[in-house]
């Protein structure tokens, strides 16, 4: 099967999965919230976009500044040009530990870190409940906001029963209670916590994290070591900018009651005879990996807007293609328009085609709702042009071009007399 047929097949399967219906429900919730206070969110989008534009515009300077400030507050900083370097560093930091507690992160997905850790015999425990359910059920996540919402209560109870060591009834409260207790045990037992970052404040040297469950607070405090991985696009000038980014991300995720944390180095105390000691209540070591990967290349190609993404997932709720084909319009590194673009850079052009580079209608609904107003139709068009140059143009599109060349119209027909 050629790449084209394979993509068509993937899309067809995505349409049959029945998951699109669940996505439509999420979409309507997201849209109604955004409509409810459109004015406030518009303003937030504008501020957000300005901050990201400014930050990406002085990327190199901010990377340097962030490194210095993070080190000054006691973090270990590792700059990774390539994904592989980041993975090696993180594996090294794991040492002989066999368990790591992890939070949701697109950057970690990009690194395929879970696979890498599992290959080495490390057990990765997802601590976000939705992700944990998906992990235990062996399912694919549906949507970043609600990865497991397509599963029934019975399916969830079944997935968690073995983990908690008893038969769970299909009851939400029971499920939450049991998961909470079990996850706490797992977090207490782990020596390493692994997170992404929602923002990095360059001047103050702070890692900003947004969450709604509280799992991130626990896994960044309780284990001895906190490993945070951030794409360099997460760096913004100040703590205030970082707060705006986090607030915006939260608003567009439409998750309420979130915790916003800033981590500025390891936990410390000098209460015993004034001798500074690390690792009092929180982590003893904080490592920040600043990942380039493909980001500088995106800037070089003039596609820096992609770096304005905060992974809120709002675009997924309005994309007409995703609403029909669900996960078929994605790859393991992400879903929807931003997922396809990331796929291009991380997994290469062919994978991007498979993920649906040519399935986007260019409608611009994603751009409209995106807090960064990322112009995906243009970006996707640009990558299509790059794909065509590499001979990845789809057969039906070749015919259209041939028709136009021969007859002046895409149908290849003779012009009727007016």
């Amino acid at each position, binding site marked *: 099967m050629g790449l*084209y047929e394979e*993509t*068509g097949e993937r*899309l*067809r399967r995505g*349409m049959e999965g029945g998951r699109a219906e669940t996505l439509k429900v999420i979409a*309507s919730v997201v*849209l109604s919230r955004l409509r409810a206070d459109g004015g406030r969110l518009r303003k937030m989008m504008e501020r957000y976009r300005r901050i990201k534009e400014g930050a990406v515009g002085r990327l190199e300077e901010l990377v340097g500044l962030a490194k210095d400030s993070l080190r000054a507050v006691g973090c270990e900083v590792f700059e990774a040009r390539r994904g592989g370097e980041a993975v090696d560093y993180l594996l090294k930091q794991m040492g002989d530990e066999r368990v790591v507690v992890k939070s949701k992160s697109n950057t970690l997905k990009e690194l395929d870190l879970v696979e890498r850790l599992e290959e080495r015999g490390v057990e990765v425990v997802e601590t976000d409940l939705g992700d944990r359910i998906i992990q235990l059920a062996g399912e694919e996540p549906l949507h970043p906001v609600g990865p497991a919402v397509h599963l029934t209560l019975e399916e969830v109870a079944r997935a968690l029963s073995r983990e908690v060591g008893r038969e769970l009834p299909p009851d939400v409260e029971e499920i939450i209670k049991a998961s909470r207790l079990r996850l706490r045990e797992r977090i207490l037992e782990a020596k390493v916590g692994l997170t992404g970052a929602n923002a990095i404040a360059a001047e103050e040297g702070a890692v900003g994290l947004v969450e709604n469950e509280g799992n991130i607070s626990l896994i960044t405090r309780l284990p001895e070591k906190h490993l945070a991985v951030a794409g360099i696009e997460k760096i913004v000038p100040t703590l205030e900018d970082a707060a705006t980014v986090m607030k915006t991300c939260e608003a567009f995720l439409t998750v309420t009651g979130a915790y916003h944390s800033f981590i500025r180095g390891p936990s410390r105390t000098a209460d015993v005879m004034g001798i500074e000691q690390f690792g009092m209540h929180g982590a003893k070591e904080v490592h920040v990996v600043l990942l380039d990967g493909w980001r500088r290349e995106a800037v070089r190609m003039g596609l820096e807007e992609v770096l304005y993404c905060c992974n809120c997932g709002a675009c997924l709720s*309005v994309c*007409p*293609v995703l*609403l*029909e*084909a669900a996960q078929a319009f994605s790859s393991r590194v992400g879903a929807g328009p931003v997922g396809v673009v990331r796929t291009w850079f991380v997994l290469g052009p062919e994978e991007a085609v498979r993920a649906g580079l*040519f*399935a*986007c*209608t*260019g*409608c*611009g*609904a994603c*751009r*409209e*709702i995106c807090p960064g107003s990322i112009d995906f*139709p243009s970006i996707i*068009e*640009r*990558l*299509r*042009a*790059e*794909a*065509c140059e590499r001979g990845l*143009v*789809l057969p*039906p*599109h070749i015919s*259209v*071009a041939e028709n*136009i*060349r021969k007859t*002046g*119209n*895409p*149908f290849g*027909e003779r*012009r*009727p007399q*007016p």
Partner: protein
Amino acid sequence: MELWFFRGCMSTFRERGIAEATVEILRKVSLPFRLFDRETCCGSVLFRTGQVEEAEEVRRRNEEEFSRLGVRRLLTACPGCYSTFRREYSLPGVEVLHLTQLLRGLLVEGRLRLGRREVKATYHDSCHLGREWGLYEEPREILKSVPGLELLEMSLSREFSRCCGAGGGVRSAFRELSSAVSRSRVGDALEAGAQLLVTSCPFCYHHLREAAEGRMEVKDLSMLVRELMEG
């Protein structure tokens, strides 16, 4: 200034009713206009599918043709052509108009009066007209001027409008996906309680009418206007 009407491929080969309606409207309001003897595709589909070289070729050909003919006012009924002329073409001194803009102008001047039609209608924003160029009001104003027509909004409209699913080369490459999107769009219109779904794009019209399968009436704005024009 002389008005040149660029019919576009969709209205020439698949939905001739739209080009015919446009021509008749122009005649009825006594707006002199000219047609191109030989039109070449605007190249929109080539630009959208990344076939840049081929696209640039037709762009150059059309730009030369327009300048040879001294075109200064270019009318199209197709948002795809409209957007491509405005975005990708370099047409200094040329005013590019979409039919909805022209019609709205006529409405304001009192030169366009539409007759009664008792119907619950809804308007589907073409992505290239709405989100791309912000032409949300023009078509709605025209619809609102029809006595008896009740204009209902779909829950996904204007900037959050659901695409008809045809654009970007998706209809030609992934027909099933493309049709699924259009069926959902017709579903949006039915859910809004509309009997008539109006759009102002030959491609949306073609695609949505096919998806409606007779469940509701679908019309391009040009066709509706021609039917209801008085005087």
